[in-house]
């Protein structure tokens, strides 16, 4: 499978190209504290290891929006400008725990030609080191045309 270049122009891409995969981590339990404060959600499942283990989990659970933020980071870094992001559709499949490594990747599913810019539609995924799917979904972004 051909790998799409980083910060691509519309003309550089074809359907079926893979996005260059990116690895994040290991995840850090101390990152869950600022995220809990931002979300105003102090659910002990995210903060208290003993509480989580008493409920059958191996450790505290990383907040879903933080998993999502890493997938957004992957996709928006690939675009020319972060706010070239147009839309996302994300499905939450499994939990992330401290020390997990997150692998993000994707594939180009569609290209729409526009006057000022084109739109790229991609299928995205996020997996842990064991290959377990954490997030799956789609994202679309604006692509500039090659400067003449």
């Amino acid at each position, binding site marked *: 499978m051909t790998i799409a270049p980083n910060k691509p122009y519309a003309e550089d891409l074809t359907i079926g190209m893979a996005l260059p995969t990116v690895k*994040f981590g290991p995840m850090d339990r101390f*990152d869950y504290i*600022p*995220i809990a*404060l*931002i*979300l*105003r*959600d102090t659910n002990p*499942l995210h903060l208290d290891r003993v509480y989580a283990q008493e*409920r*059958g*989990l191996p450790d505290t659970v990383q907040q*879903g*929006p*933080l998993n*999502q*933020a*890493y997938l*957004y*980071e992957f996709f*928006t*870094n690939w675009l020319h400008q*972060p*706010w070239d*992001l*147009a*839309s*996302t*559709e*994300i*499905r*939450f499949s499994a939990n992330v725990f401290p020390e997990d490594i997150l692998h993000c990747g994707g594939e180009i599913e569609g290209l729409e030609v526009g006057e000022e810019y084109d739109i790229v539609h991609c299928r995205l995924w996020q997996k842990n080191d064991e290959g377990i799917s954490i997030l799956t*979904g789609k994202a679309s972004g604006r692509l500039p045309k090659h400067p003449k």
Partner: protein
Amino acid sequence: MPISFATSKPIDRKALIGKVLRTANYRVSTEDVQDFMGVMPQPSGSTEKVPQIAPPTFAPLVAVLGLLRTFDWSADFEFDYRDGTAMFGEQSIEFHRPLYVNEEVEISAMINDVYEKSGRQKFDVVELAFKIKGDRDGQLVMTGKQSYILFK
């Protein structure tokens, strides 16, 4: 693993479809964006401590925290959050413009759909449709849908 919520009363959440939830407000504070940027990896060479425009990676958090203020688990969804664990299902967002640091956003939401699914146990999926407007120009910042899995 989610903890099941035992109840003797069968819950029919279908009647909730169409319910308009309360409007919530959230200021995209410098502190929250700064705390978030402390967690996320920063591009090499980046020196901007607090940007004028929030990173798009922050946007799903705004949708999540904003929506959590538009409903009450018990009063709106008949769900006991102390004993039962709710999970995120799916989220779709259309981005209309960037999110500015220090702008106040207004989050409005309604219950778009409720349906039952079965896995290892039965659960309801409650889907909210939402709109987020910014006070910088009164225009839409994001629109989308967010679903929650509520174990019975």
